């Protein structure tokens, strides 16, 4: 339950509080700009559509914000209007009632902005903390579990980051002069260093995660999803893909501010969820379409799969070979490895093993905890 005052400042502030609860980044600056924008042109207040659009432009800073805004706006202002209507019903004359009936909240904003002598009304509006779509959730993530996962993924990333070399690499950016190479370059010319060579520190390692979402790993799919979200939350240099019978890039679908929405989006996007597995074909697609963008000698590739495969084994061999040559390290995380008797008997796994740098179990939070303590790169 929230209470609000129905003067303009309080209206805007209250709506901003409401949006902030929905993970909108709104500060004093945005509130100020919104009020300034509304006072620019009377038309922005008179038209309900323009009023909504103005608030949207002032408060939305991403595509996700825009997508949610319309529902949130309608929901909030509907509640607001109800509260004002119930108040004005007793006090206003019939004419005033008619005047305020269409959009009381907007009328009050208008009166405040244009100094009309309209007495401010006070009302109480209530709203549910759940967004309209929350009821439709089939998937959800336990916050506590996710926090635990984040803790271990953070340790894992720290382990990887520690590998960062202190050496410099050549750079196009003119920040640090590589004196040795500059002297060598100018050695045949004059005694002046006319042409300079620059260097910079090597960048953080890049991570690529290729995650199996086929039927054979269905049991672990929630665990894998949480791993994806944790990686995206903690590292900016991560690319995430899922595969079953085809490959999907999920990096953009994961919104770290709205984990449950990310899950819904991912489940919608992946058509082959819990279907068969074609690792070779998926790797082939990855190498053709994404490897030039995501893979270099600074990349650690995580492949999460049990190795069960119904596709072409020679494609696995070919693409794992190519991948191992392009990236720094391939770490294969296999949930079946938890079983001590497990042997890489399936064809897919056998084809991949020669190119894997590390093969580790990955089936629960304990396995992640163990992995986080290991020296991975």
């Amino acid at each position, binding site marked *: 339950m929230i209470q609000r005052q129905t003067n303009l400042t309080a209206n805007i502030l209250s709506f901003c509080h409401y949006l902030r609860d929905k993970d909108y980044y709104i500060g004093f600056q945005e509130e100020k700009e919104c009020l300034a924008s509304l006072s*620019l*042109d009377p038309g922005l207040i008179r038209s309900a559509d*323009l009023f909504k*659009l103005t608030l949207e432009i002032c408060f939305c800073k991403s595509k996700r914000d825009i997508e949610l805004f319309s529902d949130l706006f309608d929901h909030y202002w509907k509640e607001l209007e109800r509260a004002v209507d119930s108040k004005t019903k007793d006090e206003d004359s019939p004419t005033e009632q008619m005047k305020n009936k269409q959009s009381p909240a907007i009328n009050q904003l208008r009166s405040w902005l244009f100094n009309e002598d309209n007495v401010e009304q006070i009302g109480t509006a209530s709203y549910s903390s759940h967004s309209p779509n929350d009821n439709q959730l089939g998937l959800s993530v336990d916050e506590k579990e996710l926090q635990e996962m984040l803790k271990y993924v953070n340790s894992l990333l720290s382990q990887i980051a520690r590998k960062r070399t202190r050496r410099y690499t050549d750079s196009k950016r003119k920040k640090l002069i590589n004196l040795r190479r500059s002297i060598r370059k100018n050695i045949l010319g004059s005694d002046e260093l006319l042409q*300079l060579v620059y260097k910079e520190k090597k960048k953080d390692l890049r991570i690529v995660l290729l995650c199996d979402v086929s039927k054979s790993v269905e049991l672990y799919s929630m665990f894998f999803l949480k791993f994806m979200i944790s990686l995206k939350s903690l590292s900016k240099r991560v690319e995430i893909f899922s595969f079953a019978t085809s490959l999907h890039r999920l990096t953009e679908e994961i919104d770290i501010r709205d984990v449950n929405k990310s899950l819904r989006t991912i489940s919608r996007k992946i058509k082959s969820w819990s279907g068969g597995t074609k690792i070779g074909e998926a790797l082939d697609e990855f190498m053709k379409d994404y490897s030039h963008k995501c893979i270099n000698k600074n990349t650690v590739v995580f492949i999460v799969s049990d190795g069960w495969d119904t596709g072409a084994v020679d494609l696995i061999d070919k693409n794992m070979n190519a991948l191992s040559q392009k990236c720094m390290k391939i770490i294969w995380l296999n949930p079946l490895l938890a079983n001590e008797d497990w042997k890489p008997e399936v064809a897919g796994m056998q084809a991949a093993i020669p190119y894997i740098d590390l093969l580790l179990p990955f089936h629960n939070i304990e396995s992640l905890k163990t992995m986080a303590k290991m020296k991975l790169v």
Partner: protein
Amino acid sequence: MLNWNSTNHVKEELIKQEYLSTDSIDLAIYLSSKLNKPLLIEGPPGVGKTEIAKCLAKIAQVDLIRLQCYEGLGVEHAIYEWNYQSQLLALRLMDSEQNSLEEKEAHIFSDKYLLKRPLLQSISSDKSSVLLIDELDRSDEEFESYLLEILSDWQISIPELGTIKAKTVPTVIITSNRTRDLSEALRRRCIYMWIDYPEFDKELSILQTKMPNINQKLAEQICLFMKELRQLQLKKSPSIAESLDWAFALSEMHYEHLDKQIIEDTLGIVLKDWQDLRDSQDSLSELLERVGVVQKLSS
């Protein structure tokens, strides 16, 4: 420079430049101008993000200064750079003169040896301009941080010269294709706008505005086909730019309507990915039949 009276004024001026906008585009341009804030435009490639900057420059009759971003873009290519070779030469020439070290330093670190790159150019110019920072998502986060000072305070700090404040505040348009998320700090300094693929009617109007002589039936069929094509799971969905290219090509070849053969022959203009091309060609008949385009085309 851009003194808008209302959102309608924005719309009218954009129409004069043959840019058909939506209410949200008009309002975003109006507010960014009035609040003196950069306009951050996101959306899929080819929907007209860059075109907005070009139109604004034409409307205001000022220069369009464009900074094309890429991975590894740094201060020296975006803001300023000292002309090192000229500085060396100047020092050599000054050897014979009796100048003090301070005087020499002041001379070689003066405006004469400063190479102004787009960002510095736009804020140090006496004339106002439209600054287009194109595809910012391609640059590194480090570069985004450099932008923060410019976008919030309209000034650039050069260690050897001090802080250069903007003589005229440029109209700044930033575009991004969302290959990576831009920082919250940058977003908060901008008015945000998302441009999506246009609806059928809008796309038809765009075709007719840009190509007044196009056959009405052909234009409708192109827009309808594009709309259906965008529903498919393609790696790179065709945008307005592709629609225009396709319409132009078909008009040049004097086609008055679409049929399967024409589509197959010219699909390369619309789809720019080999996999997309193969997938769509394989299922073209099915696609046309399913979406009812075949009946429309043959009628």
